[in-house]
């Protein structure tokens, strides 16, 4: 997994003729962290290093690297830190799974609660409560 390519220089404003190439590199730019500016993607940054990595990404794509090859190339050098979309692995399992677990549990709890409220309601006739509440509300309003 550690294949260094031949050292080539890609000039900063090398033009990419194919639209597909442009589109692919834009997509990758959005997922690569600008290392020197703390919290931006290289897409959004005009820092020197970000520009250089952009030109490297374009160069790699032109050489026939797949999108994930390009990502691996950068991860080999800078670690997972460089990816704004953390890969799914053991240490990020919680990150990716918890939101959906929480969502699932929340919906489950919600349904349980709602059904419980409904069950008590079915067991109790509704009318007296209505009056009771009306009185309570009136009392509150009188308090003002």
């Amino acid at each position: 997994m550690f294949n260094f390519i031949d050292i080539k220089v890609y000039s900063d404003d090398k033009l990419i003729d194919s639209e597909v190439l442009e589109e692919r590199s834009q997509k990758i730019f959005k997922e690569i962290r600008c290392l020197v500016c703390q919290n931006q993607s290289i897409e959004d940054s005009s820092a020197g290093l970000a520009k250089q990595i952009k030109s490297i990404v374009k160069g790699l794509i032109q050489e026939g690297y797949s999108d994930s090859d390009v990502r691996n190339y950068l991860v080999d050098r800078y670690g997972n830190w460089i990816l704004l979309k953390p890969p799914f692995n053991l240490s990020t399992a919680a990150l990716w799974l918890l939101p959906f677990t929480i969502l699932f549990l929340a919906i489950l709890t919600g349904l349980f609660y709602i059904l419980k409220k409904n069950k008590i309601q079915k067991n109790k006739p509704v009318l007296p409560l209505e009056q009771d509440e009306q009185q309570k509300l009136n009392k509150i309003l009188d308090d003002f």
Partner: protein
Amino acid sequence: MTAEIGQFCMILALIVAASQAIIPQIGASKRDYSLVLFGKYAAIIQLILILIAFLCLMHLYIISDFSVLNVWQNSHSEKPLLYKISGVWGNHEGSLLLWVLILALFGAAVASFSKNLPPTLVGRVISIQAAIGFGFLILLIFLSNPFARISPTPINGSGLNPLLQDPGLAFHPPFLYLGYVGFSIAFSFAIAALIEGKVDAAWARWVRPWTLAAWCFLTIGISLGSWWAYYELGWGGWWFWDPVENASFMPWLIGTALLHSAIVVEKRDTLKSWTILLAILAFSFSLLGTFIVRSGILNSVHSFASDPGRGVFILVFLIITIGGSLALYTWRAPNLKGGGLFSPISREASLVINNLLLMSATATVLLGTLYPLILDAISGEKVSVGPPYYIGTFIPIMTPLVVVMGIAPMISWKRSDLSGVLSRFWICILITIVAGLVTLFLTYKGPILAVLGIILSVWLISGSIADFLERIKLFKVSFNDSFKRIINYPRSAIGGTIAHAGVGILIFGITISSAFELEKIQSVKTGDRVQVGNYIFEFKGTEISRGPNYDAIRGNFDVYKGNDLIIKMQPENRSFINPEMVTTEAAIYPRNLGDLYAVLGEKNPNNTFSTRLYYKPMINCLWLGCLLMALGGFISLSDRKYRIGAPKKRFIEKNRTLGLYN
């Protein structure tokens, strides 16, 4: 002298806060109302003292007194007056003083507008408010003194970061803090209610306007920050899921949940302990945000210069405040019994779903924000959690929320039948399906998220309109009657409808602007033409221009549509001198709710200029949506029933017979 007066006032305020925290609390438990009255006066005196301190600092900034460390570090004599003033809160110490000022302002407001509240409750609320203020004053006086002097006096200041020299950012922090700190009132009311052991409809009715006001301010604050990023940072991004942005977004999400659950407490006397928890959490997240911003614990573009001492202090403060209140919650909340019962298809049930989804969304944002830290703490491994993660997890949670949101205002309280509601909604469902199909057809093989976004926004907007029409019974009763209904339509309901429609428009703006944005990045020389969609940008060269404290290279673009010149755009590349920094000033031309957006980058060695040109369709729906949300909130706030004092009973009765207060 001014600095010393400010310093002195802060210390006096600290003493007042201490007594305000203790005496009314005793008064409330001993039912000695004179002590509560003392608290009310103390709250007002505290506000005056902190206001004086704040004005002193502002004065020091205006006269550029560089013998004060804070002024020297963050100001410069050649800075325009507006930014001298806004520079007061453009740094850690000054913004903390602003925070304390707003806290005192809210405290004094509760004290002044509380004639109709039970005195014990007022006493406790004022006391808790002062306790929070006390903690922040300690931080301010001992760890972040804005009035510290330096000797010898430097000749000139080091200046304010030019990115912050902007009207948008001048008003962003005050609004944000009005929101953050506004939640302290809900927090204090919640703690007071836990101590008193009583939460009822009246309680919810007192809390709701404060929460609503805070929520509106926070909405404006976040939008201002976002808008500022859009036009100032130079690539037209408006939300980056940066930890500090998340720190303001989380209280907003919880605040939104709180607003809705408080309605349930008010109308149906249930969901009490849950609402109390939300009231505690909304402010806790505000405090957490403060901690994140000021401790430098996370990588962020926004952090103030970090200082471990402050970080430790705020963390300890956080543990005492949040930990203490959650402990109290654990102890007292089980005693809060809610009454109202409801069936699975009812307004209550939909609001329960709303709350749980908003909480899940908050949990996700929190997890994403803190995960790099948690992983680093556990294994030392470093990861970045960026926008792709949030987009991937947030959308699945928000989608059902928006679906419920579109239909919920039409579901009646207690019990309702879905078929009845759906039958009134058939036209919305139809419109939504058609809109979805049309988008699918137009963007064949295009981004699937765009289709989803359009479906959701159309659903929400049409749902809000249908809700409004239904309530005024347009075409079902005479026009005269419909008109009367509009007049008597409770403002809280109108506000809600507008805010919901605002969310729909916001989603529409986000979807269209991100899915169909056109972007061209290139180097140009004079005479070059670049095509962006239907527009042609012709680069006419540059000229030098001079601002109050910067020099700029101004680019000239003639923008054509077809053969017609529609606008000349002049983006600038500004070089500031104090401090030395280069910023880009984008040129933005609004067109059909979208924006043409041009950025001039640096000059290349071969005499070309790097430029970025964009067309951002429907981007202005984003700001419009945010504006409508805040506007809806304010309209709702102006509802008679939240006016201080008694709502006119007859008015309520009349509307009840009309079926408007259901």
